[in-house]
């Protein structure tokens, strides 16, 4: 038991060290490398907290895709780094900020050290109703059965964020292709990877979606891997991002939320309320929602990383 605690304490110190370095380092690119390492370590922390679903999400979205998004931005903003260094606030402001941040941390730490007894939990209720959903993974049950309303709204948030990103395009380029066109690589190594990895990644993504019903995994985790594979193909110059004005693309983006909404509305007819599933049909309906949802989330995530349209069609 003490060995496990020692490892946990070491991991916590490591996370804090990487986080401190990410904040303190001068160069933005180095800070992003630190951030990706931070996300990877957090995934390990989630495993230690026995939250495997969260660990999967953190490894995929929190570290991987967010890291790539920030990285591309850091590379583009490199010319501005010099000027920004001159704007650093004075020592007095830094000192006051440090004190106030420490107060916030101390307050939260006090909350952690003063646990309520018994700890509030809905685990019993979640497990008790699991047979009614036909699922084996209680986290998936919360996401798609007990609190499906939240998950539906979250999908809408993703699409709204993409609309926000697109609306930043200059008028002339509206409906064009997002991101830079990556030249086809001359050397073989990257092309080889970009040809070999995506088929494997697609299989893994579908596997994540499939096991999500009973084991950790699910629509988000699967779709993030699909999105990452698509970005890899684009980066290697093997394919190009489609113009965002294409009708089929927009259909893919909204298909998931629309199916979700349709199933939810049909709940009025076939069950007793919005987003209610009729007894015995919960699992098939949840899978019916999750499959198009995975495609839509994958497309949305990929296009969010690609950014607003930058080239005419």
């Amino acid at each position: 038991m003490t060995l496990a605690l020692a490892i946990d304490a070491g991991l916590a110190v490591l996370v804090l060290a990487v986080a401190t370095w990410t904040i303190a380092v001068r160069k933005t690119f180095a800070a992003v490398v630190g951030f990706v390492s931070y996300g990877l370590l957090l995934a390990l922390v989630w495993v230690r907290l026995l939250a495997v679903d969260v660990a999967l999400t953190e490894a995929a979205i929190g570290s991987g895709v967010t890291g790539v998004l920030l990285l591309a931005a850091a590379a583009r903003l490199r010319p501005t780094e010099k000027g920004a260094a001159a704007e650093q606030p004075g020592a007095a402001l830094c000192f006051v900020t440090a004190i106030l941040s420490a107060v916030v941390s101390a307050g939260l730490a006090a909350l952690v050290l003063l646990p309520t007894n018994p700890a509030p939990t809905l685990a019993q209720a979640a497990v008790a109703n699991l047979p009614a959903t036909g699922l084996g993974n209680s986290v998936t049950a919360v996401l798609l059965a007990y609190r499906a309303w939240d998950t539906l709204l979250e999908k809408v948030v993703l699409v709204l964020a993409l609309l926000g990103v697109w609306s930043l395009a200059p008028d002339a380029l509206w409906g064009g292709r997002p991101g830079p066109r990556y030249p086809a690589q001359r050397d073989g190594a990257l092309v080889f990877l970009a040809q070999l990895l995506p088929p494997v990644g697609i299989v893994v993504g579908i596997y994540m979606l499939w096991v999500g019903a009973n084991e950790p995994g699910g629509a988000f985790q699967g779709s993030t891997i699909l999105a990452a594979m698509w970005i890899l193909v684009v980066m290697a110059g093997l394919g190009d991002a489609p113009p965002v004005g294409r009708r089929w693309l927009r259909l893919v983006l909204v298909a998931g939320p629309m199916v979700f909404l349709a199933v939810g509305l049909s709940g009025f007819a076939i069950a007793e309320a919005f987003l209610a599933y009729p007894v015995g049909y919960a699992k098939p309906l949840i899978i019916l929602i999750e499959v198009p949802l995975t495609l839509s989330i994958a497309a949305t995530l990929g296009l969010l990383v690609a950014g607003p349209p930058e080239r005419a069609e």
Partner: protein
Amino acid sequence: MSLALDIFTVVAISVGAFFFLAGTVGLLRFPDALTRLHALTKADNLGLGLVVLGLLPQAAGLPGALKLVSIWLLAQLAGATVAQLIARAVRPGGPQA
């Protein structure tokens, strides 16, 4: 049988952990980027490879073992490609044009 397999696991994982140690020492002590890359790839290939090898007897059936091996293969593929890309970027007079 079970004891022999357990000993195999302990030996393979210990040797794998040693390669991680070697990789880290190399990354910290070697003088320039290319030699450090050399040290890194050893930890990548052999360290993870031996850990996976050691875990195979403990795996849950054939599917579990196949999953472990495919993780190692994927790490190999990615590691080799990234090492190539880093080496090209680092090498003086590399493909700059």
